[in-house]
């Protein structure tokens, strides 16, 4: 054997990173609702705009 064994992979590196990010986020003291909203934006809706992420973090627009 010369190289690494071939693994079963889904060719979606961003999804791997987003999932790990959400896992790590669950382990620190952030509201569970925030993690759920981010999961919806990043994994389900694949919405990567600033506005979508801002709404996911704060559930509403941050204070002016």
């Amino acid at each position, binding site marked *: 054997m*010369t*190289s*690494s064994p*071939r*693994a*079963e*992979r889904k*060719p*979606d*590196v*961003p999804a*791997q*990173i*987003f999932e*790990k*990010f959400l896992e*790590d*986020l669950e382990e*620190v003291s*952030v509201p569970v609702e*925030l993690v759920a909203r*981010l999961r919806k934006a*990043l994994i389900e809706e*694949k919405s*990567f*705009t*600033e*506005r979508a*992420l*801002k709404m996911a*973090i*704060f559930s509403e627009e*941050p*204070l*002016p």
Partner: protein
Amino acid sequence: MIRVDSITIKQFRGIRDLTLDFKGKNFAICGSNGTGKSGVVDALEFALTGNVSRLSGEGRGDISLKQHGPHVDKRNDPDKARVTVKVAIPSQSKTITIERTLKSPASVHVTPHDQAALEVLRQLETHPEIVLSRRELIRYVLATPGKRAEEVQALLHLDQVEKVRACLQKIANTCEKQSTPLVAAATHARDNLLRALEISELITEKVISAANIQRAILGLPILVGMTETTSLKDGMATPGPSKPQRIPKAQALTDIQAAHDAVTEIVSSPIGARVAEVMADLTALADDPIVAASMKRETFYATGMDFMEASACPFCDTFWDLGELKKHVQAKIDHLEEVSRKRKAAETKMAPLVTALRKVKTSTDMLVRYGMLATPPVDMQTARDYSAICEAAVERLTTFLPVVETITVLRNIPTVPRPVFDAIGALEKAVAVLPEPTKQDAAREWLTVAQERLEVWREAMRKQKAAKAQAQQARKVFEIYTATSDSVLEGIYSDVEKDFAALYRCVNRNDEGRFEARLLPSMGKLGFDVDFYGRGFFPPGAYHSEGHQDAMGVCLYLALMNYLHGTQFTFAVLDDVLMSVDAGHRREVCALLKKEFPNTQFIMTTHDPVWLRHMRTEGLIGGRSAVHFRSWSVDEGPIRWDERDVWTEIDDDLKKNDVRAAAALLRHYLEYASTELCHRLRAPVEFRGDAQYQLGELLPSAAMHMRKLYARAKEAANSWNQREVIDQIAARESAFDILAKTTNAEQWQVNVAVHFNSWDNLCKEDFEPVVKAFRNFLDGFTCSDCNEYLRVSPDRETPESVRCECGRTSINLRKKGI
């Protein structure tokens, strides 16, 4: 994912009508430059992804798929340009047909049309990296770290990851920026409260103590503690509506002094020096037209990125490929990184000026209120106007752009109009002459003002706390995201790095058996250093040869694909990617692909027939898994070395009495065939350093060697006492002799007709027997079942047998006991 069984190409690029039967196996396409190999590669990419990267992307100028994809004669009829591929999907145990036309590249016709098959196709469309050309390969190896990172990120689809990182960073930065004025407001509220309380520190005991002194004067119960709702004037009678509001003399004088101090600070030397410094920096920025314009563009691009959600440009509504459009705009934003850095430095220097201006505004606003309460009122219009100027200046400095307007505002900051000082002085005089209040009135005023300011401070602190919590939350999310993505990417790069080094060692085990490599991700860049014979780590282009760099490119590509697709890496097109690799190392690449990627179907192109033979002899491709293009014409497209086509073409030439064309083609084909025969039979040919062998050197050698092989086979059969086999071989030998002698009898004619170009002395009737003789002669080297030339096995060391591809012909060459 998939394996491609066959492809049919019609009126596409330089191809008129071509079908290749890959049978889901490795396949090679060989031909000189300009014979149509890349047309097949483009057609494969088009069928599977709807795009041809060679006709799109950076540096393509005014070339487009739709306009230049069809055959030049069908450029106005893109519907005729179509590619059909039959594709096996092993994971679904099914075969589908995919068809696209250039009339509508994005539309695809899939049969059978089911969701599972469409999902596979959707995945294919997002993975154009299944086609690798040498041009792309070099981008992985010789690119700058920034460019390489872009390429690898594109391959791994990291643009989404980077987009999220940039957004989260912007959100965190914006939240922190938004909390700055709230912090300033809370600081001012605190200063006002401290002045009202006449204490220097905001400590509960001191606040209660100061309030209780005043409460004692009014006979109110003392406060024993404070909560968020405690009122300092709790229990104090509310003044009746008829009683006019008075100026709290002592507090007013303190506030007047604070306003005076704030305004005086504005005209002080430190502020003047800071203004001069910032103006110099901004003037330098404004004088550079590129920088000045870039700052505007940065904001413009960033705004545009936020609105990019559909496949249309948010500014001009032109339809783009969304990914390409985002990449295009992001590249512009990245290019403005230096401009962002300069802007941030200037904003940091301006921060104390913003604080001083805010202090002036809040303190003069308070004086305006005192002026209205005075009897008669004191005209504080100049102070009011100056407060508005300070507010506008704060707005301008924080907005920053346009820089020229910011410079104008900065220039005016150290100048406070004299009437402002006059108004403050007039108010001070008006307040100073007010009668001293009674002790009780003073206590009432003290508690009233203190409570008002306590409430203002509490509200300011609440807002500041909320903004701080939001900023902290946004920052935490960003930091966790950065740490997670870095960690995952480091893991990916580490895996790829190890795999790449192992693959490269496999190809270069003879001279670089200890080869190592380092992929170094850092701040959006991807460094790539490789070991050079134990002398240290250097960029691949520093010391390694071009051939080694090509091999590195292939190995890095394979390692990335291995990571990305794992067991699903079932298909790849390698378009002339090893042109600089020498013969020995190509053999190793063949072995590598065969051994390490047994489940991947490689479609490979090469202009080098030797490389094609390596692929065959190393078993990377089967005997029939190749096509050799001999020429190309705009009318016909690629013309392959196909026995049937060649003899038909010669017959057609002779029917037209074009002996010259028939003779030229015969000679050309015999050169190709005899080279192939000498290689397959391991026939000895006098070595030539320039590899320019003549037909007269090759064909006789192949014929003589075939006879020797038959003789050797009879000896072997005799040693095994196989009389029947000896008879069979003798019969073959005899038939071969007759065929060879026929061509020998005609040899002079061939030479005259073909080699010496005396074709004009031959008529059709003279040349037809020549053609027939050589056609029959070549059949003597061919298996009648599989129609493939015989070959000696193995291709090195002691010959053991003469075989064909289908296995029907197998003649033993080994004697008993040897």
